[in-house]
């Protein structure tokens, strides 16, 4: 038997230094973990691990601080942008990011995110939209699609009763203090790569002191959608993206050079597609 000499091999895949070596608590097929990995890779690539502070939400990502190998804390439900503001304001040279679900950011925490954006806080917000309250067992969120069945909309989301789904990237993009607001998805490899690039830009925006950066990520919740992991990814493409178009909703002029984009940031409707 010959031993494999690792020196002869290139490492092509390994755990980023910014992630810890622990078991995941996320459900099989859930893309929360994938998004964590993208953040971890970006933190490594930017060399900011020792300088970064993570503010975890209340939601399925409540244990986010366990997975990131950076200093971390736990905000009350929806309050992460306020807590992150407190941290960033007293340590302006650190990199502070929040990781928030759609219940956390778009329901109970709307005030905090809007005002953090309004003040142009130098924070990075990773906003995970899975069209429901995952952690509490799949209730309706402001982002739940019309007709979507959840445990608290058992007959499907009824527009007469609760209105239309809330489009957060579009909403935040109207606030001047938010200089980089995009929507991405992680339902296939091409989009995973685009999501990673956006997360990287978002952190760079913060490091350049250009104001709030937010990446909304369409993410799967196979458990509460009652789907297989595969069909959940398909549902993102078929059902979610038509309601939540991917694209760049605001890329401030000062941010433009960071995105290395060939196209102008804004089309007429503010969406560049993709």
């Amino acid at each position, binding site marked *: 038997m010959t031993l494999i000499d690792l020196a002869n091999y290139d490492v092509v895949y390994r755990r980023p230094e910014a992630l810890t070596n622990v078991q995941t608590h996320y459900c099989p097929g859930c893309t929360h973990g994938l998004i964590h990995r993208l953040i971890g890779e970006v933190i490594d690539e930017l060399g900011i*691990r*020792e*300088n*970064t*502070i993570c*503010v*975890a939400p209340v939601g399925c990502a*409540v*244990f986010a*601080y*366990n997975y*990131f*190998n*950076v*200093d*971390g*804390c*736990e*905000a*009350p439900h929806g*309050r992460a942008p*306020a*807590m*992150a*503001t*407190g*941290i*960033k*304001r*007293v*340590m302006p040279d*650190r990199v502070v990011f929040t990781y928030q679900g759609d219940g956390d950011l778009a329901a109970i925490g709307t*005030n*905090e995110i809007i*005002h953090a954006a*309004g*003040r142009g806080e130098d924070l990075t917000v990773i906003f995970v939209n899975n069209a429901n309250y995952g952690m509490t067992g799949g209730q309706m969120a402001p982002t739940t699609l019309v007709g979507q069945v959840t445990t608290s909309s058992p007959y499907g989301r009824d527009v007469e009763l609760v209105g239309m789904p809330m489009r957060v990237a579009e909403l935040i993009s109207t606030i001047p203090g938010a200089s980089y607001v995009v929507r991405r998805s992680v339902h296939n490899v091409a989009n995973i790569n685009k999501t990673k690039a956006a997360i990287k830009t978002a952190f760079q925006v913060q490091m350049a002191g250009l104001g709030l950066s937010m990446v909304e990520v369409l993410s799967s919740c196979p458990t509460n959608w009652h789907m297989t992991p595969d069909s959940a990814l398909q549902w993102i493409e078929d059902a979610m993206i038509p309601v939540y178009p991917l694209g760049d909703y605001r890329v401030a002029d000062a941010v433009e050079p960071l995105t290395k984009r060939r196209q102008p940031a804004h089309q007429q409707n503010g969406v560049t597609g993709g």
Partner: protein
Amino acid sequence: MAKELWKGNEAIAEAALRAGVEAYFGYPITPQTELLEYMAREIPKYPGRVFLQAESELAAVNMVYGAACAGVRVLSSSSSPGISLMTEGLSYIAGTEVPAVLVDIMRGGPGLGNIMPSQGDYFQMTKSLGHGDFHPIVLAPSTVQEAVDLTYGAFELAETYRTVVVILADGAIGQMMEPVVMPPARPVMTEEERADWALRGAKDRERRILTSLHMNAEGLERMNLGLQSKLARIQRNELRWQETMTDDAEVLMVAFGTAGRICSSVVQSARRAGLKVGLLRPISLWPFPEQRLLELAERVQQILVVEMNAGQMVLDVKAAVAGRAPVHFYGRLGGVVPLPDEISQQIDKLVSQPAGAGYKTGASNGFGHATVVPAGDARAEGRI
């Protein structure tokens, strides 16, 4: 040090600055707003310190929480309705065991109530400043000078115990002007002085996590037992109160803050009238000086608790004295401040009536006749 004339709210703010507070987050509310305005004006003069007006008390308390996790001295201030909004965050701060200082300049409640001085938040502060088993340290000044001194020391106290310290005053103390000797200004903490739990970035060390989340029952029980033993240490070490002429007192008054201050002048007039009246003024409301009250209860014949609420601290007094002396209550509500004469009349009633006749039960019904609010008194023109 020379005495200077200071308004209560501004004096508290200045004391915090001199104690080396690095960040202030708040939201305007009467009768506390001058504190926020003072910080807005003064903090920009200190490079590196932070003033930020939050969008709500909800946001303010969570900004405080974040800054506290970063290991800096941080302050917020509000008044009753705003404190109600902060309670979720305060519970997180207590559960995470990070230090923070909060000022509550109480106003009349419940609801929007009014902007007059009140002591209606005693229960909220000492018993339930948020969900779960915890108590903040609650300190109640009765003069502007005392508010300054307590605020100045509050940060160290918060850091020693990694807990919330509340300066609990009312609109009277917040708004009045009094001569004050300001303490010397301390420099802010250096990077080396930061606590060994503070989140400053995991450079050349293991990463740190600050959370109040403990998913398994045994783990959370262990955390809670730790919290309880810390609270027990606070109860042993941080009791504060002031006594006036209690040595030979036959009637002991118990009152805090503004009511305590009024009662100390009642002691003087009662003594001039030859009545043996004394006062115990709790300064720390939590921990509460129960042991000292029990000792005094063995010696006095009557206890009269005076509060600007419907009878809140009186329950703690009754629990402390455990039936050793009859406990009576006199209170005014809705922002009405009791006059010394009204309180003296209560004392006259107590001493003219033998202890056995109707008062021995300790029934605290003393505010019933006093709730008639003189027209216009409590509904002053309001910046609600």
